[in-house]
C-alpha cells in the first residue's frame, strides 16, 4: 500500500487553476465539489425501499407481494424494512431451486437495469454504497487511494459472481436438488448489516441460534467497515457481484458519460477527484465507474457531460470518446 488519498476540495490543481495551459486554452475558475445531492438521493432511495416500519418495531420481515420485485441495489430481503428483493439473493434462490437452472426473471432484470443505467445504481441507488460512502467520510490520517495489486484485485468480483452466485448454488445441491445461496451464506456483509444484526437485536429466539456462521459474517462485516474508512468502497471495488454484472453494461448503457475532446484541456482534474481511480479522459464509461458525477463537477471546461443516448447536458455537441479516436487516425 504505497499511495495515499489526498482529499480534493477543489477540482483543478492550484498551479493551473486560474492560469493558462501551454496550448493557450484558458482554464475557468475552480469548482466546489459537493456530494450532498447524491447522498440525499441515496438516503431517500434507501428509506423508500426499506420503509416497512412494522418490521423494525416487531422484529419481523415484510411478506407482501411486492417482495417478488427486485430492487436494483444490494438490499438484503431479510432486512426488517425491505419491500423488495435483492437481485443477487433472488438469482441464487432461482438457480439453486430444483425447478429452474436458469433465471430469465433475474437475468432479465439485471440486463434491463444494466442496459438502462449501468453502474449508476452503485453510485446512486445502493444502500450499502451509501453505508460505505459515509464510512469513508470518517477522518483518518492516511486514506489509501490505491495500492499494489489494486487493479488485479478488482477482477475478484467477477470470480465471486461466477463461483458463489451461479456455480455453487447450481451444482452443490442437496438430495432434493436445492442449492444454498452461498454468496449470502459465506460472504455477504450486507445481509449481516441490514438483516442479521437488526433481527438478532429484535428477536430473542434468533439470537439463541447465532453460532459460528454469524460470527464469521460479523468478522467480514467488521473488516469491510474498517477497510471502508481507509479505502473508498472496498466492497464495491473488489467483492460486489452486482457491481460486477452492472459493470459489463457501462459502455453500452443508454445512460452514459461523454467526453468532448475539443473542450478537454487535459488538466487531470477529473482523474484526481475520482475515488474509483479512473481516468475519464481515457474511458469515461469505464467498468469501474459508479457514475457519481464528481468528474463532471470537477471539469473546469465542462468537457464531461452525461445523458441518455443522444441526450447529454449539451446534446449534439459532445461526442463519445470511442467515436472521436478513430477520426484521429483518418488519412488526410
Amino acid at each position, binding site marked *: 500500500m504505497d499511495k495515499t488519498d489526498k482529499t480534493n476540495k477543489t477540482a483543478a490543481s492550484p498551479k493551473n487553476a486560474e492560469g493558462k495551459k501551454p496550448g493557450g486554452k484558458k482554464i475557468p475558475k475552480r469548482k466546489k465539489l459537493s456530494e450532498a445531492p447524491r447522498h440525499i438521493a441515496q438516503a431517500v432511495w434507501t428509506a423508500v425501499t426499506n420503509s416497512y416500519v412494522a418490521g423494525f418495531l416487531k422484529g*419481523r*420481515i*415484510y*411478506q407482501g*407481494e411486492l*417482495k*417478488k420485485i*427486485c430492487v436494483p441495489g444490494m438490499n*438484503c*430481503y*431479510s432486512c426488517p424494512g425491505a419491500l423488495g*428483493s435483492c437481485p443477487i*439473493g*433472488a438469482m441464487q*434462490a*432461482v438457480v439453486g*431451486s430444483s*425447478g*429452474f437452472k436458469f*433465471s*430469465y*426473471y*433475474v437475468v*432479465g*432484470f*439485471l*440486463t*434491463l*437495469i*444494466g*442496459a*438502462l443505467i449501468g453502474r449508476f445504481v452503485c453510485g446512486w441507488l445502493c444502500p450499502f454504497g451509501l453505508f460505505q460512502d459515509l464510512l469513508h467520510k470518517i477522518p483518518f490520517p492516511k486514506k489509501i487511494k490505491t495500492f499494489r495489486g489494486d487493479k488485479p484485485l478488482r477482477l475478484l468480483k467477477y470470480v465471486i459472481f461466477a463461483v458463489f452466485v451461479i456455480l455453487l448454488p447450481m451444482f452443490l445441491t442437496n438430495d432434493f436438488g436445492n442449492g*444454498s*445461496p452461498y454468496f*449470502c*451464506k459465506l460472504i*455477504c456483509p450486507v*445481509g*449481516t448489516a441490514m438483516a*442479521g444484526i437488526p433481527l438478532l437485536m429484535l428477536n430473542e429466539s*434468533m439470537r439463541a441460534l*447465532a*453460532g459460528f*456462521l*454469524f*460470527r*464469521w*459474517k460479523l468478522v467480514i462485516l467488521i473488516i469491510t467497515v474498517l477497510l471502508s474508512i481507509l479505502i473508498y468502497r472496498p466492497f464495491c471495488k473488489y467483492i460486489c457481484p452486482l457491481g460486477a454484472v452492472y459493470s459489463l453494461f457501462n*459502455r*453500452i*448503457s*443508454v445512460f452514459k458519460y461523454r467526453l468532448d475532446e475539443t473542450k478537454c484541456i487535459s488538466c487531470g482534474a477529473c482523474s484526481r477527484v475520482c475515488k474509483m481511480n479512473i481516468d475519464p479522459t481515457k474511458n469515461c464509461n469505464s467498468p469501474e465507474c459508479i457514475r457519481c458525477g464528481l468528474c463532471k463537477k470537477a471539469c473546469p471546461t465542462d468537457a464531461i457531460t452525461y445523458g441518455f*443516448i443522444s441526450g447529454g447536458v449539451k446534446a449534439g455537441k459532445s461526442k*463519445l470518446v*470511442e*467515436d472521436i479516436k*478513430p*477520426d484521429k487516425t*483518418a*488519412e488526410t
Partner: protein
Amino acid sequence: MTINSRNNNSGVIILKPKVNLSKILLTSAGPLLCIIGAAAVMFGHFRGEAGVVLSKAIMVCMECIGIG
C-alpha cells in the same frame, strides 16, 4: 457518420462519408438489451420464477443473516 478524405491519382481530394459501425453498435445495444431484458423478466415471471423469488424473500433468509 464521419468524413474520411483520400487522395486519388489526379490529386483531387474526395470526401467519402463513412458509416461508423462501432458507434451504431454502441448506441443501439443499450436500447436493444433493455427490450430483451424486459421480455426476459416477463418470460421468467410467466414460467413461475417470480413465485420462487417471493417464497424465498418472504421467509427470513437464515443464510443471509448468518444462522443457516
